[in-house]
């Protein structure tokens, strides 16, 4: 299925578990991902923002309601690098606060936590 939005990542996350206010996904960072030749030549590291993008896409896929749009990244902490072939496990928790949906998420590889992210979403956009 073609992506709904332009995105730098090519892998598609699979939803492993989904509850009313939480979700878990898995996605493999294939060595053929298009960003690797430029990030960096001779030393491929999956860009931190691409890990955030996987979290963003997984959040949309497990969202408590349709039509959400990322309006802010409240915080991101990068904890360890992601390399070609790594499998990302993403744990997401949704919370509604101050009239806005927020998603807290952790992405981990087999070596441990890679990134922790808090995203705020706005509502009322068409799917």
């Amino acid at each position, binding site marked *: 299925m073609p992506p709904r*939005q332009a995105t730098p990542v090519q892998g598609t996350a699979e939803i492993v578990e989904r509850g009313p206010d939480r979700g878990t996904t898995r996605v493999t960072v294939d060595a053929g991902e298009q960003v690797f030749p430029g*990030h960096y030549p001779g030393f491929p*590291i999956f*860009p*931190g*923002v691409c890990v955030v*993008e996987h979290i963003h896409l997984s959040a949309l896929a497990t969202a408590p309601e349709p039509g959400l749009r990322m309006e802010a990244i*409240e*915080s991101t902490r*990068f904890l360890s690098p992601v390399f070609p072939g790594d499998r990302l496990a993403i744990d997401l928790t949704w919370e509604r606060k101050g009239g806005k949906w927020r998603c807290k998420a952790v992405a981990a590889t087999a070596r441990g936590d890679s990134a922790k992210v808090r995203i705020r979403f706005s509502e009322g956009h068409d799917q």
Partner: protein
Amino acid sequence: MIDISGIKRVLPHRYPMLLVDRVDELVPGESLTARKAVTANEPWYRDLPADATDEQHSYPSVLLIESWCQAAGVLAAWKNPNPDVLAGQVMLFGSISDVVFHRPVLPGDVLEHRVRLFRELSDTVIFEGEALVDGETVLEVGRVVMAMRPASELLEAANHPEDPAGTA
């Protein structure tokens, strides 16, 4: 002004992940203004459906951040450029916070990144700023923390995956 070849002497990023086209103003240790032109020929648009709407062509939000952070990277590395990610000190992003996205950025837009150095410690630099298109703010960046680390730490993480080192 720093043109593209000058940027490539400072940053290790290359196609398709070199997301700064030109630096218009640089005050070492203080501030920088840079631009990035968005075009429909970037690879992120390749797999969109044939009838994709303008909204579906919104420039990926995370790449707005990446582009802004690369501009910050030029400011950070200007005094000690190191386009080789395998040697010397490399730039790693430790944390990014309070980033707000305003209107979508579309092909044809030229991003104007405004980067201000907020604080400089021995091996850490903190930046803030925004990105504009045609004078209108499209992205606010509250705080980006960049750390300078020996490349050997990264190489070790790649070779001994059980010893992770903080990086982005």
